[in-house]
């Protein structure tokens, strides 16, 4: 008898409907997905196609209107807010489209925030962040506040914050949107290394063709539904 591998993330006929001015807007319509551990997945699609909403659903940031979402086999829809928060802290890293750095904290403090929430000692937090900053070209900028960083630098801090805790799943919304090609390549390199070396599962929502080219699996969304789901061999990393 063989042990069946559990998907890193799974959705089953998941829908998300928003009320807007009394009208129901279907942002995600009946999406069913199995994303295996270690996959490097890109969600592509035009603006308004539901990429960000689907990412939020996959990370338990928002609850589906109907359908189910599972992370490591755990049903997110039956979890309390506290359980969801703990799951996000321990298993999921987010990179938001708008960076969402805390303006009062330095780059290093922003990057180490999830480690702080996990109760990791300050020296260990600093060591891990500095190690990561060296890889993504942020050394020397540790003490700068977000207002003193460029858009690309802020995005790198946001990525560092998402991956520094070595989560099993990283959900990134347009992570390369504000980066030039060199910075974008460096950042994607870090993520590809994490994917390859640690088996971290990555799910990106993007318009960036460079990122799409690196994807092992490209899922195209149109009007909240999956239009295509292509698994590619020997791509990415």
């Amino acid at each position, binding site marked *: 008898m063989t042990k069946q591998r559990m998907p890193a993330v799974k959705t089953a006929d998941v829908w998300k409907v*928003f009320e807007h001015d009394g009208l129901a807007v279907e942002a995600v319509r009946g999406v069913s997905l199995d994303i295996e551990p270690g996959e490097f997945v890109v969600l592509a699609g035009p603006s308004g196609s539901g990429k*960000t*909403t689907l990412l*939020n659903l996959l*990370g338990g*940031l*928002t609850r589906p209107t109907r359908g189910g979402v599972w992370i490591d086999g755990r049903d997110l829809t039956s979890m309390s*807010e*506290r359980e969801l*928060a*703990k799951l*996000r*802290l*321990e298993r*999921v890293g*987010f990179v*938001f489209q*708008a960076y*969402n750095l*805390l303006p009062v904290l330095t780059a290093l403090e922003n990057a180490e*925030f*999830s480690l702080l*929430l*996990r109760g990791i000692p300050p020296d260990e937090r600093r060591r891990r962040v500095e190690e990561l900053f060296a890889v993504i070209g942020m050394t020397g900028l540790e003490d700068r506040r977000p207002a003193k960083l460029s858009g690309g630098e802020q995005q790198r801090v946001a990525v560092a*914050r998402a991956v520094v805790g070595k989560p099993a799943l990283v959900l990134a919304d347009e992570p390369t949107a504000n980066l030039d090609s060199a910075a974008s390549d460096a950042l994607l390199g870090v993520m590809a290394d994490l994917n390859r070396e640690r088996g971290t599962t990555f799910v990106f929502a993007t318009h960036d063709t460079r990122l799409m080219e690196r994807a092992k699996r490209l899922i195209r969304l149109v009007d909240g539904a999956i239009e295509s789901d292509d698994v590619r061999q020997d791509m990415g990393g």
Partner: protein
Amino acid sequence: MLAVGYFSVVILVGWSKGLVAEMIGNGTGILTGQLQVHAADYQPDKSVHATIGGREGTDVAALVNAVRADPAIEAATPRVYGGGLVSTGSATAAAVFLGVDPELEPQVSRIMGALERGRHPRRGANELLIGAEMARSLGAEPGDTVVVVAPAVDGSLGNDLFVVSGIYSTGLADLDRTFALIPIDALQFLMALEPTRIHEIAASVPDPWQAAEAAERLSAVLEGAGFAVGVESWATLRPEMVEYAQLSQAFQWILLFIVFGMAIFGVANTMLMATFERRYEFALLLALGATPGVIVRSVLWEAMALGALALAAGAAITFPVMVWWHRVPLDLSWLFGDFTMLGALMRPVIRIEYPWLMTVQAAVALFLTAALAAVYPAIRAARIPPADTLAGR
């Protein structure tokens, strides 16, 4: 807001305590004394026959010394009471005669210190000190001779010529109209009382709130020494003052609840605004994995930190004012004159008695207010939907 609340409560309570202290000080200090020793049957009729030790009297000096020996008592003086008339020939006034020891009485009461004109009566002399109101109704001045008539304890009617040695004015019209002070030996002679017969030993207790305890202690001591006496503190003699003090204390709590009760809404509103402005920050923390409990605790801790700052600011403005108005009471006599309260003369001053306990109670109330005011905003912050908020929805 919390700092101002702290200032208001502490200063108002200090003022209220000052008012009570002044009322008790004046109500007992002008004439009554904080503690009195009588014959066991003297109260409530106050018969002139009910002298300490009965018809035989007592060793007055020994009794005065025994009373003074109590650690809470600063001074003690013997007194004799009588009732009668004072007449100048053209005018007559009813009077309560108070036989006093001119040397000891000023150590216990302030009535002789209220001398307005003339001088104090001298021991052994037929002299009397009358109040300003009585002097006005009699048309008497210091140096005038008056006829004093008083029923004596042997059934006769004592009468003699006395010289008005001086006129006092306490500001209490009833007192100034009624009481005439006569050297104790002169009054005893007038009322056919032996020198061993007195009606009262009045004593001063610097801390009036120790008087009841001292009275209890003294009662046991005097009883043990063979004196058949009753000892009463001002709290028994002037129960209305105790009631006012209790009312004032209850008012302190009401004040505390009103001030911080009002503050709680203001602080809650401010906290709500602050948490609303920081909703992106809370949404981000929740998205990164902070539990709702972490958010609640963080907002509550911030409220407590704000409470600590408010307490520091409140203390910084409260304590200097408190010490200032304790040492130099704010004189409002330019605004209004003296007034009486429960028979006690009150000066128009804002005098602060240090409300040490209330400084602590108000600090606790301040922190409770800060914490309670933050509970609802903290819960709201913890319930922010992270995805919608970060998306600006």
